[in-house]
């Protein structure tokens, strides 16, 4: 049997082979990685599942009631240029009118939204993006390939402060570096090609398999050429079914249905008349109070002990999702004594990740192995659990001459991040290593998050394992908080980023994961299961794998 992409072309050979492999000796994990891969290469969810001889799970949207006001508990932050979004919460509000090319789903598939589909060459150097026909901006003009091209150019503009899309699209950028002092920090010439009114072609200078996942990330909102976030209330230019009525930072954001606009996906979502995002601050106790006072219908994300409290509420239901959300407790190699690999390895040796999972998040997740790549990533290789040996750790620490050094571990002041970091400190102390704990409030913690000599940071999930390695562990990256700079790692990663075939990429990945561990880069103890709660009557507001909520999917059940 032959399988085809959305556009009718056959699936690449390596994907077909992978399907056979998974069918033969598939576990849930390998099925999942297959579906992500096949989906990124243009298979519909139905095709991807069919290739495994399975049926795609039905989406429960059939029983939605039209109309109503949904109140959603979530922080309300000020809008900014979408490229510079640093909080998923901003995107959750703007997703009402600013849509995305691609959407990443909880079942690890990608759904084309403003794209109709895409084709990626087998060597992952040519992308053909098919722009969806019939999409209109809410000012009445047509959405075309020009718009897509303009947005991609914008993403590749590294000179825009805080533009995190530039890191996701770095392959396309003529970056100014020491080796290339004349770089423009903009998109390279010849990369972007508008083929016709609804086709955009990307000719990459090097293979990159992460572009589609990058387009699904929350800062990748597609904007109109005249869109200005400062005047978004008066002129909410976008393609989506809602418009913002009011955005009061820290208080409330209100989306109302745009009655003057025909949404391209009309009849297939956007049931609610009005969605209110209400800010109840950072304290989960206040969220409980809001739920008990019947002031909200759904919540953003509930953690730790509050899960039990919410679970005890009448009329509320729980939604769990296993994710690649995680925490790293990392030494920064630019600071002594962490420039010594043995010190770093000793730190990892002294802690048991199972204990951190238990103490940090009460077992609500799965253990990880200090590599920041996990079983939810397609190219994950099981290299075994990290060694736990406190005696050896102490010995190594002493031999490295840091036996008397007092390690200061910094963390943010609340929740699982503090608890997990406390647990690390505790285990280090038990191993006989001196530790001082410093807890900083959220408002100041992030000032130097990437520079603290030893601290913990939470990381949001990325669909592919190579993505997060490229973002956080490549030499010189802005988000490289561990100060890791290793030529072999960088080179291997560059190679891995160019391999579309998952099996072949795994070979490189294994080396990358080994390097992460051998170099003692980080302690990455567990992957989190994320949970939120909604009223029984609410649908389409279940916790998303990367904290994305879709106004057009939220509804009350009929």
């Amino acid at each position: 049997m032959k399988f085809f992409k959305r556009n009718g072309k056959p699936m690449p050979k390596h994907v077909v082979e992978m399907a056979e492999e998974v069918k033969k000796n598939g576990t849930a994990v390998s099925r999942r990685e297959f579906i992500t891969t096949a989906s990124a290469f243009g298979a519909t969810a139905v095709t991807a599942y069919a290739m495994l001889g399975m049926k795609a799970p039905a989406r429960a949207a059939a029983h939605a009631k039209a109309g109503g006001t949904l109140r959603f508990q979530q922080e309300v932050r000020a809008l900014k240029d979408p490229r510079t979004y640093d909080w998923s919460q901003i995107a959750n509000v703007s997703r009402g009118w600013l849509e995305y090319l691609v959407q990443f789903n909880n079942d690890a598939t990608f759904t084309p939204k403003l794209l109709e589909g895409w084709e990626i060459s087998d060597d992952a150097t040519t992308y053909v993006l098919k722009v969806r026909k019939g999409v209109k901006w809410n000012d009445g003009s047509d959405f075309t390939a020009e718009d897509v091209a303009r947005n991609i150019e914008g993403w590749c503009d590294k000179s825009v402060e805080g533009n995190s899309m530039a890191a996701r699209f770095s392959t396309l950028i003529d970056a100014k570096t020491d080796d290339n002092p004349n770089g423009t920090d903009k998109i390279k010439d010849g990369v972007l090609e508008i083929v016709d009114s609804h086709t955009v072609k990307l000719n990459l200078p090097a293979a990159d398999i992460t572009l589609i996942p990058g387009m699904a990330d929350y800062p990748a909102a597609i904007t109109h050429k005249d869109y200005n976030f400062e005047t978004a209330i008066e002129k909410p230019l976008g393609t989506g079914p809602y418009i913002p009525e009011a955005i009061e930072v820290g208080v409330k954001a209100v989306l109302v249905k745009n009655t003057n606009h025909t949404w391209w996906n009309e009849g297939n979502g956007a049931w609610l008349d009005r969605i209110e995002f209400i800010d109840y601050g950072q304290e989960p106790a206040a969220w409980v109070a809001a739920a008990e006072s019947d002031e909200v219908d759904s919540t953003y994300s509930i953690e730790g002990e509050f899960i039990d409290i919410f679970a005890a509420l009448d009329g509320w239901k729980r939604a769990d999702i296993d994710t690649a959300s995680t925490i790293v407790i990392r030494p920064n190699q630019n600071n002594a004594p962490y420039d010594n690999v043995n010190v770093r390895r000793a730190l990892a040796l002294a802690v048991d990740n199972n204990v951190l999972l238990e103490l940090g998040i009460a077992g609500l997740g799965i253990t990880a192995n200090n590599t920041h790549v996990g079983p939810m990533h397609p190219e994950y290789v099981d290299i075994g659990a990290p060694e736990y040996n406190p005696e050896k750790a102490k010995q190594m620490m002493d031999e490295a001459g840091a036996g008397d050094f007092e390690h200061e571990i910094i963390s943010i002041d609340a929740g699982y991040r503090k608890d997990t970091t406390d647990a690390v400190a505790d285990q280090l102390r038990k191993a006989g290593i001196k530790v001082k704990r410093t807890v900083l409030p959220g408002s100041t913690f992030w000032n130097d998050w990437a520079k603290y000599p030893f601290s913990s940071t939470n990381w949001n999930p990325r669909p592919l394992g190579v993505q997060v390695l490229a973002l956080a562990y490549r030499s010189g990256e802005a988000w490289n908080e561990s100060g890791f700079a290793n030529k072999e790692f960088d080179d291997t990663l560059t190679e891995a980023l160019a391999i579309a075939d998952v099996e072949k990429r795994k070979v490189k990945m294994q080396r990358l994961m080994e390097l992460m561990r051998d170099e003692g880069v980080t302690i990455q103890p567990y992957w989190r299961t994320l949970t939120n709660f909604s009223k029984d009557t609410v649908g389409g507001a279940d916790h998303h794998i990367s904290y994305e909520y879709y106004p057009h999917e939220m509804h009350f059940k009929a």
Partner: protein
Amino acid sequence: MGTFLLKRFGVMLLTALCLTLIVFYLTNLDPNLEKLVKSQLDMRTSDAQVEAFLERNGYRQNIFKRYGEWLGVAPGWTHTTETGEITGRCIPAGSDPADAPTFCGILQGDWGFSTVFKESIGGLILDKLSLTGVLMFWVMITMVPAALIIGVLAGMREGSKTDRTLSTFSIITTSTPEYVSGVVFIVVFASSVTGLRWFKGTAASAMDGANWENFTLPVLALALYGVGYIARMTRASMAEVMTEQYIRTARLKGVSFWGVVLKHALRNALIAPFTVIMLQIPWLLTGVVIIETLFNYKGFGWTLVQAVGNNDIELMMAVSVVAVFVVLFTQLISDIGYAFLNPRIRVS
């Protein structure tokens, strides 16, 4: 009287100037500026970008020059970008730089722009103050009569059972800070822990319309501390008045006990509590910081927390000015009122 008022306003201005200068200096310390930039751009911004932002937005000028800009006595900064675009303190985004005024500080009635709320501060502070005003109004309405009644009842017969009971009550309430009583109230009256759920444990909806259900707990939590405190003062004052010669004389003349209390003792006993009540107002202003945050009632106190947490310089300056005004103005009223209540004291 006129010179007295003039002097007082002079002091008020001077205090406001000094305080804002201190606040301005502190908020413009380097780490605070960095915090500001990161809240503006991205919490993971690089140092070079931070510096570029500070340079471009006028933060790297002399601090007194910048303070002068805020006051409106120094011309606002301007910056010309590489592409020739002119931005500046007095040039709102999207407007023509040629039309912009040279000065734009509080002397020109421009309180600046909040970096957290992305709104102009004048209107923002007014909105938030009116929300807090509503809260404080209900707190005063509850607190003052309750405190006075308790204080008078306790003080009129010192050492009696009523006195002991009410004194115990006031000591307990005044020794319970509002962040404790607030949490206890939420747990007892608004959660499924006790199952009572008489009220709502959050006052977020009270911003749109305060009612019995959503406003009782914050008002009670705030009022309770003051009730105990003012009641103690009233009791002391009442007890002292009740030992005065003229009270004994009145009693001996045959005036009934209640007649003595209401006609002769009360007016004299209320002089001291009046000052205390006035002084409670600035104290309430700090109390709302906790209560508004706890109950998610987004008024002045909550705004202060947000401003400090994000190093919103101009908003903090505005908040300081309001605070100075409230403190000194209530003192002024209490001084003048004191003179009216007690003829032995004269202002001037």
